[in-house]
């Protein structure tokens, strides 16, 4: 497994270059050389690096075709013996005695113009490939993505520069506003190794002072990447006609050098270059003027009632703190505020001067010597709203508009009334409700906040003014909306519809120009539409077969699931992790089967492989009455065997992979329900997995997911398409109607419309909801059941056989030692094969625990939470840290015994005070007393310490006085292994007295050989 690093070699009067080099942890880590410049002992020769990189993908091969094999002198930290390996290459705790040294490192070097393509191709390495990207390379890939984004937004200007004595046309980034802040973040984030090469890349015996500074390296890299991105986006040429020859005017040659492959302008006269570049330099500089700390701000205010006098007030405003706001009027009369430049009126005038270009009407205000505001009539105010305001805002001016601006003003209101004579009391609401039920409906036209009649609408249309006051409230009317509204009043506006039709109308949300903005429905239909069903429905009591107690919110969830299922509607149960989606689902299956005389078709549950045994265990624990069949693995039932076992099952558990492979067989079954757990797995509707689960027919559908679906709209559409096929309409319409307005513009109307459209089908409770917190225990302990991979199982068996033979042949102290060693090895296998083998081999896809840990931590991070992860093996933590950090691209702190007190304090301080979601890996032994890590609300024990007291003590780090949130504690256990058996023993002993097993692992060594063999034996069920 090669760990590939990216280095940016800042150019010396020429564009910089990208260098790739790699560590191979399998090579010896030290060198005997004593020279001042020594060969890097475990850097990969360039040929091998090129082979590894290009073998994995065609894109990478093409991108690296012109890479030069060379040797760089890098300044890297290390000791007298060798350089410090990177965390990805398995660096042990960086101890004392580190110093910078010059290491001759073989590398592949790419010219700057090819760096963008190369970084694009290297951004997503094949997880099964022979190399992984270190943080430095991933950093440069993110920077490349940022450069492309800037170019796509047109944030660059053409310049005439001189590179190695030759003039050249280049695009240069314009860094203002958010881009300037982003640039500073990139500077702060840059891993030092990115700039460990000497400027210009010379391998002369240069001191460490010759390496690039942060600013120089980043600036050079961004300039080179933006230039490449702009060239890739720009047309082949911007002017038609003959290509200019060497004697054409320089300006024309320069223009052609900005597109296409060759930027150079050989032979240009220095005087011409100077003349052309001067205005270009001024242009780029003036673009950066917008970075001042103070900006000019415009505020549009409504006219007083009965007048047509809109006011556009000017002001100065702090860019960082918009509350620092000084109206121009006050400014002219001498008022000042902190943070203003010495000549604030000049700032105002200069800003207004720039704004005229985007808002020509402003010229009039500038005729005044002390412009403070300008008066607009309604037509002009509308022009400002529509045209000038977005441009001014985009150009960095402050713009404040009335709250109604930009909202769709005209919409429809749908009112429905059920016909039942009896008042729909809470209890009776849902009893007789069905989608076929008829309701009376009425559709009204809404403008602003109030309904308007057809006559009023006709009057508004006749006036033909874009801004009107309706019932005291200003609204923007556009032509298309008016036309749509006039058309709508001509249509049927009253009558009766089935509840199902009403629901479909609500989901459709009206037309684009005439959206449904308000729904007033009563009865169960109203509850369903308003998303209140879970609160309003008659609670379904915990079914008798359920072992345990459903918490109140879980009973509400059960009622909701039951209600939707009865209507034949698909639902998304999106409760926060840890709130018991599994228990609610299992209780639903039991509730459906309360009446033994009514046969219920089985439920097919599809989940990631890492969750199969968890479902199996949870079903056995909560709903032992359910007949559960696991359809998974090489030995799964087929054909008639499969059909007969399904016929007698209540719950069939399978994986996404198996569902795809056995689609034919699964489609033949009459399923009562198909449920997808971790429904993010089908977030991409085009994938074969997603298509497969959609193709399996079932009476009703259920999706379980813990990720906040409202943050991932494409994912939401795909999951809804699974739950209620066709209901949300085609993906294209969804994108145009909801996704783009919300994701790009943060459109509040579209957000409300989406909520209305999906609200009936999504139940999402947060663990922070007040009503939930009161239902939750302060410390919620869960066991997470993991399966071994085939590789783990084979290794496990081999270790058992090996060690049993050794134990058999030993006695006394020696035997004790061997038993402990056997346990350690088996626990390491349960963690990860690479943990046992310590061979630096690749991590993904080889461990059930790791797979589950990846999923769980991703969900924790997604929720914006922080977690403590305990392991008793420092070497496993060292493996996990860079892997999880790369997997999540979030901080993963690692506290182990090798850290100084100061460093530990630093980590604790960062974890406690930084608001970013992150993980804190801790070695169980090193995390002794004195740590206070209350910022975490998740605790994960990756491997078990057989002394519950030690685990509890660790858990309490996150659970101290002052912890206001509920803490979720998860203990990972591999099913069918000694971990499960010891867990069972602990539980048994705990039941007697919690102090009994307080003596650690010693008791195991007293077991006789047969007992040991039974303890260690692998139950075949463990293997996935």
């Amino acid at each position: 497994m090669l760990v590939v690093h990216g280095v940016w070699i800042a150019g010396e009067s020429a564009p910089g270059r990208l260098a790739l080099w790699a560590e191979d942890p399998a090579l010896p880590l030290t060198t005997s050389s004593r020279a001042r410049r020594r060969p890097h002992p475990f850097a990969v020769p360039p040929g091998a690096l090129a082979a590894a990189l290009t073998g994995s993908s065609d894109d990478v091969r093409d991108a690296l075709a012109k890479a030069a094999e060379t040797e760089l002198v890098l300044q890297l930290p290390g000791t007298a013996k060798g350089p410090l390996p990177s965390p990805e290459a398995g660096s042990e705790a960086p101890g004392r005695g580190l110093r910078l040294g010059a290491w001759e490192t073989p590398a592949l070097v790419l010219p700057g113009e090819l760096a963008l393509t190369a970084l694009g191709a290297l951004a997503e390495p094949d997880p099964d490939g022979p190399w992984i990207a270190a943080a430095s390379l991933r950093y440069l890939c993110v920077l490349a993505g940022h450069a492309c984004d800037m170019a796509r937004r047109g944030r660059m200007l053409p310049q005439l520069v001189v590179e190695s004595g030759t003039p050249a046309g280049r695009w240069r980034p314009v860094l203002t506003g958010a881009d300037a802040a982003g640039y500073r973040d990139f500077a702060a984030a840059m891993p030092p190794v990115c700039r460990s090469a000497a400027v210009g890349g010379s391998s002369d015996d240069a001191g460490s002072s010759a390496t690039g500074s942060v600013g120089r390296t980043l600036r050079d890299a961004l300039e080179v990447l933006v230039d490449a991105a702009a060239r890739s986006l720009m047309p082949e040429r911007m002017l038609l006609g003959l290509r200019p020859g060497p004697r054409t005017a320089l300006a024309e040659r320069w223009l052609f050098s900005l597109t296409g492959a060759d930027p150079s302008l050989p032979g240009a006269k220095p005087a011409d270059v100077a003349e052309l570049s001067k205005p270009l330099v001024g242009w780029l500089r003036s673009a950066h003027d917008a970075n001042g700390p103070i900006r000019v701000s415009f505020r549009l205010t409504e006219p007083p009632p009965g007048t047509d006098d809109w006011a556009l007030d000017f002001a100065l405003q702090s860019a960082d703190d918009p509350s620092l706001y000084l109206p121009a009027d006050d400014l002219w009369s001498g008022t000042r505020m902190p943070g203003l430049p010495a000549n604030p009126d000049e700032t105002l005038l200069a800003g207004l001067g720039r704004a005229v270009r985007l808002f020509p009407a402003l010229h009039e205000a500038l005729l005044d010597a002390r412009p403070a505001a300008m008066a607009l009539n309604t037509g002009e105010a509308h022009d400002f709203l529509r045209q000038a305001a977005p441009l001014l805002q985009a150009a960095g001016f402050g713009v404040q508009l009335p709250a109604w601006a930009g909202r769709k003003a005209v919409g429809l209101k749908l009112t429905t009334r059920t016909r039942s004579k009896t008042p729909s009391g809470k209890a009776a609401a849902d009893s007789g409700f069905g989608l076929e039920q008829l309701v009376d409906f009425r559709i009204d036209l809404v403008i602003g906040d109030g309904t308007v009649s057809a006559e009023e609408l006709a009057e508004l249309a006749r006036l033909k003014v874009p801004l009107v006051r309706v019932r005291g409230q200003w609204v923007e009317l556009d032509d298309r909306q008016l036309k749509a509204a006039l058309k709508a009043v001509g249509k049927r506006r009253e009558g009766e519809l089935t509840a199902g039709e009403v629901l479909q109308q609500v989901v459709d949300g009206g037309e684009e120009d005439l959206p449904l903005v308000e729904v007033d429905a009563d009865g169960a239909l109203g509850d369903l539409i308003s998303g209140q069903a879970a609160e309003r429905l008659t609670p379904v009591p915990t079914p008798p077969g359920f072992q345990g107690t459903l918490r109140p919110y879980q009973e509400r969830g059960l009622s909701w699931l039951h209600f939707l299922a009865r209507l034949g509607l698909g639902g998304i149960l999106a409760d926060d992790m840890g709130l018991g989606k599994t228990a609610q689902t299992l209780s639903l299956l039991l509730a459906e089967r309360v009446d033994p005389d009514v046969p219920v078709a089985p439920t097919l549950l599809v989940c990631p492989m890492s969750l199969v045994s968890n479902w199996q265990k949870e079903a056995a624990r909560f709903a032992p009455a359910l007949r559960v069949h696991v359809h998974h693995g090489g030995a799964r039932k087929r054909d008639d065997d499969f059909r007969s076992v399904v016929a007698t099952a209540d719950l069939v558990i399978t994986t996404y992979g198996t569902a795809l492979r056995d689609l034919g067989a699964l489609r033949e079954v009459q399923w009562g329900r198909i449920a997808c757990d971790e429904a993010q797995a089908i977030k991409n509707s085009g994938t074969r997995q997603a298509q497969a689960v959609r193709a399996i027919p079932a009476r009703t559908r259920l999706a379980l997911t813990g990720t906040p679906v409202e943050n991932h709209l494409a994912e939401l559409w795909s999951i809804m398409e699974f739950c209620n096929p066709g209901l949300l309409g085609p993906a294209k319409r969804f994108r145009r109607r909801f996704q783009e307005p919300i994701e790009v513009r943060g459109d509040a109307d579209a957000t409300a419309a989406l909520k209305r459209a999906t609200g009936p089908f999504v139940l999402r409770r947060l663990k922070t909801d007040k009503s939930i917190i009161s239902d939750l225990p302060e410390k919620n302990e869960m066991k997470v059941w993991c399966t071994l991979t085939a590789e783990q199982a084979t290794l496990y068996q081999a270790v058992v056989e090996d060690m049993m033979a050794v134990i058999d042949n030993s006695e006394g102290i020696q035997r004790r030692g061997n038993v402990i060693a056997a346990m350690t090895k088996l626990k390491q296998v349960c963690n990860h094969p690479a943990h046992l083998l310590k061979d630096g081999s690749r991590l993904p896809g080889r461990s059930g625990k790791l797979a589950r840990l990846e999923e769980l931590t991703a969900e924790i991070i997604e929720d914006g939470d922080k977690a403590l992860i305990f392991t008793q093996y420092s070497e496993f933590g060292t493996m996990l840290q860079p892997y999880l950090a790369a997997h999540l691209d979030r901080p993963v702190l690692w506290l182990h015994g090798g850290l100084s007190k100061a460093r530990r304090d630093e980590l604790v301080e960062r974890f406690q005070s930084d608001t970013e979601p992150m993980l804190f890996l801790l070695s169980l032994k090193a995390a002794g007393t004195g740590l206070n890590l209350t910022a975490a609300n998740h605790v994960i024990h990756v491997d078990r310490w057989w002394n519950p007291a030690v685990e509890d003590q660790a858990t309490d780090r996150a659970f101290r006085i002052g912890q206001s949130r509920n803490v979720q504690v998860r203990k990972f256990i591999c099913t069918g292994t000694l971990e499960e058996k010891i867990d069972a023993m602990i539980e048994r002993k705990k039941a007697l007295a919690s102090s009994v097993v307080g003596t650690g692992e010693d008791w195991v060594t007293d077991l006789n050989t047969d007992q040991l063999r039974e303890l260690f034996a692998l139950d075949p069920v463990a293997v996935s």
Partner: protein
Amino acid sequence: MPVDPQGRWFDNTGPIRVDGGLAVRAKRGKIGEQWWSRRFVDILERTCDPGRLARGRAYARKGQVIDFELTPGRVAGRVQGSRPQPYEVTIAIPAYDEAQWTRVLAALGSQALYRAALLAGEIPHELVDLFDELELPLFPSTLEMSCSCPDWGTPCKHVSAVLYVLAEAFDDDPFLVLAWRGRGREGLLTALRGLPEPVETIDPLAVEEVELQTRLTDFYTPAISLSRLRERPGRVTVPPELLLRVLDAPQIRVRHIPLVDILRPAYRDLADPPST
């Protein structure tokens, strides 16, 4: 004073007619419409005897002033009298030196109002006050005048004529007043525009530098997580050609087409490049 039948006054000899001389527009009444021009006329009319003044005004209306040249501190004009050789008139005031102008510029820069007014072609009263406060008055209280004519009276009618013509030139271009004190229009505006912002502008490319030496333990790790770098605040949809619109376009033409006009279509397509 002899007056001819057409009502024209004349000298014994009478002035020689000038073709293309600088005749003032105001054929009767006051010369110098703007208040700043009046300031000169007032000085003149205070110090000159009414007879010469009237003759000077008449000279000015007739266009006897051939031309004049304004340089810092000095106005030199040529007036056609009765002799073939025109009389040479000079009117001098103290021109301010570099140091004095630096003080003036600093004061002017303190309020953008002056700049806006100067750009609009006006001299606000406040400007005069500002010069006065600096004890560098814009308008002289006395003028040092001389003429090559034999008239012993000062100012003579030739000087008066030049002053009237000058006053009207001031009407048209108030910057001449300033130029007389030593700063021409371009020089002044450039100096004003170029005044360094007292608050240092933030260089967007300036970043905090950290020695490699101090990062040995986290040499391979980003100090800000990459996810955070990927987060981009949601922004309003910006037309990609915005930069071209909002900035002062550089005066560059390619094949006679302004550069920005060539770039604009290419920028517009950036967000959504047409597939080739």
